[in-house]
């Protein structure tokens, strides 16, 4: 049996993270890319031993993910992955706990667990595979499907409004919030790396194409001739420039982001909004998050927000240490005796 040291000396590769199970997603599914980028990134970002990594999921196509990673894994029940992960992480804060989930799993049946995991800042990495459709149940609309979407359960179009996952995570006080796209492997790898390095709850929304039930949902953002004009790549401390020829920028008009033409000569990069990932205030991140909802504005990808706060699991551990220091290590016999005892002779 290979010891830890031997494994470390050997230097891990993507293959070391692939399990012996056949991958059973539909051919052409965006999930393959996510799996590949995770496996490619892990050798580089995992500072801990492989046995300390745990992948947890709920139910849905994305939630088969743990079976394909050669780490500890737990395929849970629908919506509950963040809660199972909370138990794992609190029980053993030394573990590196990752969650693979989908838009139905995390934002519909599991919405409550998601917002509270964010609120508590549990040190989990949550990867949301957002394809805006229910895939495993074969094509019903999801809480991220656009209003008016025609699906099997909405033959005349859906009448409800979708969640904006990035906005939801920022609103729930997640300490790391990012977005990326399955078809942009470099960017996806970079986001995984950043999430892995974050201490606290890291949330990545990954636009993921379901080529069977919602093909092309993100084509505007992935196709060669449209993507540059449709995607705004966020970079810390950089002015927000986009477009095929980097000729467009984002400027604030009050709290409203507007597009300005850099080629016209009326505006320069100095007029543009400059990204600040680390702002204490969530305002900028929130404005950027809602650009997605606006049909005329480009969709931002990248890190919207990263802040540092005490984690929940760390807080529990620190409190135990603090109380133990103050009261001394628990003495069970004393506990059983309690405050008022009497003797019968």
């Amino acid at each position, binding site marked *: *049996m*290979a*010891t830890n040291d031997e*494994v470390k000396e050997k230097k891990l590769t993507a293959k070391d993270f692939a*399990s012996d*199970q056949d991958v059973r997603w539909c051919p052409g599914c965006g999930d393959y890319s996510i799996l590949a980028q995770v496996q490619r990134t892990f050798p580089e970002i995992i500072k801990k*031993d*492989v*046995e*300390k*990594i*745990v*992948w*947890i*999921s709920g139910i849905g196509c994305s939630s088969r993910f*743990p*079976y394909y*990673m*050669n780490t*500890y*894994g*737990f*395929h*849970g*029940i629908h919506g*509950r992955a963040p*809660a*199972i*992960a*909370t*138990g*794992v*992480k*609190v*029980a*053993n804060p*030394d*573990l590196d706990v990752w969650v693979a989930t989908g838009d139905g799993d995390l934002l519909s049946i599991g919405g*409550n*667990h998601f917002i*509270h995991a964010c609120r508590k800042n549990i040190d989990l990495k949550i990867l949301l595979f957002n394809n805006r459709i229910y895939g495993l149940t074969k094509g019903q609309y999801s809480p991220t499907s656009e209003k008016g979407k025609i699906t099997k359960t909405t033959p005349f179009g859906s009448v409800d409004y979708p969640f904006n996952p990035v906005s939801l995570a920022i609103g729930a006080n997640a300490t790391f919030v990012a977005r990326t796209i399955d078809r942009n492997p470099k960017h996806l790898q970079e986001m995984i790396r950043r999430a892995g390095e974050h201490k606290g709850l890291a949330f990545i929304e990954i636009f993921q194409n379901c080529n069977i039930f919602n093909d092309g949902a993100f084509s505007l953002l992935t196709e060669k001739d449209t993507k540059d004009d449709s995607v705004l790549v966020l970079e810390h401390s950089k002015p927000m420039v986009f477009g095929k020829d980097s000729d467009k920028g984002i400027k604030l008009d009050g709290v409203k982001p507007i597009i300005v033409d850099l080629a016209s000569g009326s505006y320069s990069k100095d007029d543009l909004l400059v990204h600040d990932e680390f702002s204490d205030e969530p305002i900028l991140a929130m404005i950027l998050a809602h650009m997605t909802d606006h049909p005329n504005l480009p969709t931002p990808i990248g890190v919207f927000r990263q802040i540092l706060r005490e984690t929940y699991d760390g807080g*529990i551990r620190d*409190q*135990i240490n603090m*109380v*133990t220091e103050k*009261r001394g*290590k*628990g003495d*069970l016999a004393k*506990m*059983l*005796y*309690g405050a*008022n*005892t*009497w*003797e*019968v*002779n």
Partner: protein
Amino acid sequence: MDEVKDKKVEKLSDVTVRFAGDSGDGMQLTGTQFSDTTAWVGNDLSTLPDYPAEIRAPAGTLYGVSGFQLHFSSIHVNTPGDVPDVLVAMNPAALKKNLTELNPNGTIIVNTDSFDPKNLKLARYESNPLEDNTLDGYHVYKVPISSLTSNALEGSPLSVKEVGRCKNFFALGMMYWLYNRPLEKTQEWLKKKFAKNKDLVDANLKALQAGYNFGEITEIFTTRYVVEPAQLPKGKYRNISGNEALSLGFLTASVKSKLPLFLGSYPITPASEILQYLSSYKNFGVKTVQAEDEIAGVTSAIGAAFAGSLALTTTSGPGMALKTEAIGLAVMTELPIVIVDVQRGGPSTGLPTKTEQADLLQAVYGRNGEAPVAVLAACTPTDCFYQAIEASRIALKYMTPVILLTDGYIANGSEPWKIPELDDLPDISVPFRTEKEGFYPYLRNENLARPWAIPGTPGLEHRIGGLEKADITGNVNYDPDNHNKMVNLRNKKIKNIANDIPDLKVDGDESGDLLVLGWGGTYGTLKDAVKRARAAGYKVSQAHLRYINPLSKNTGGVLKKFDKVLIPEINLGQLAKLIKSEFVIEVEQFNLVRGLPLKSKDVLEKITELLGGNNGN
């Protein structure tokens, strides 16, 4: 104090007292203090707190009445008493609500100050019961408790309202005098409880002492009573409620198994106290997560079990329903968790603060698919301690979820507990799997338990989940024969636990005309009823189930030796249904679902009815 006349002292062996007042009057506190002192002076006792679900219902109303019943004795006590001998009524509503249950020649102590037109009207009294013939036949002591309290606290810096709140300690002081109990335990408690507010400590101490002195001085009371200490087995004792005993039981299991304790839970009456107790045991390394909902409570426990903790979740009926799917996940992943259901009145929100036994079939069967789990039940407040340890032992040894049923009555009720020696409690050994050679996640040992290989163990990386597992490898598997095999293996594993639990004991003769078979919190009541029936010459014995699934191996044999089996339950016959289907026998039932413990006189009546004149006389 030259006015003090010598008062008659009468010896009693057995008294049942009920304190009743507004839910804001502090009756639970008064009752608990009286219980703790009574336990401390060496009486055996049993308590029944009975309070409304509303925290502060409008003052003076009938539905706002909160009661605390206490049965104490110089001999062994099994129940909180069918019928109170003494009622302390702090207002007309408390009198009205409790009078019908009082012993017909019982004693009533009333706070006359509260019998004003407004409170009489709120209690729906047409005329003042203290002045008409409502209380004929009772010994009534009319005491202006409120005004005596404010007189005693004259000059106190507290507000009029705050002074008014001290009246329960006056009443407590009076009862201490009447039953010859020392004040010191309550005095100590007050000093500690209100350490940050000296004025409150002073006022309550004064009220307590004034109540005691009043008993001594007043001519109203001509007799005081003595209840001698009970002859309990030798040892060190404390008074303890079921919820606290349960919490200490799990703490003990954690220490004995050398596993960190994890509780994922969502507050729910009457189980919340367990989360409160365990969250204070930080210096034992206990981790508690107050989860966002019931489902997160149980699923976080499942996660913690996966990571190697002794993991629990605690709840009551409605929460149990919400945890159902996740318990199935623990069955499929074969992880050790303990689910505590402190049963309350149902269905739905039901009667949150009242007791019931109607979650039995939910515990045994309430999951999708064939999802067997071990089910245990605690039968007294102190048994909660031992059953918490036993539930943990079974969960860890067999890698299975275990449901432990208690109920509102034994959770809130208290009794003296002979504190065990730690060395007398069994060690729980838990071998984590570390050896890589020959490791398969679903390769079973002689108990059919699978290995517990926790994340962080090098070389044993594996995946589990809710999809059907292939035998041995644990890979996802949809093969029909494999599924059939796994369904049977999971079932057999739970059935085999029967080889590892004690036989069902019969209290009384091993055969006879009737066996009274019960489970859970009715233990004391049934014991009392059977004892009385035997004293009357009936050939009756008692057996009480602490293991519901599986049943002890000798259960069928025990039942066969009696002509009849009576199963009294606070439900419509859930254990009766189990027993009938398991052993294909006829059983008699006694079912009363009032949100209250059964009364031994009612059970006795049923026994008499079943056996007719067949008592050998």
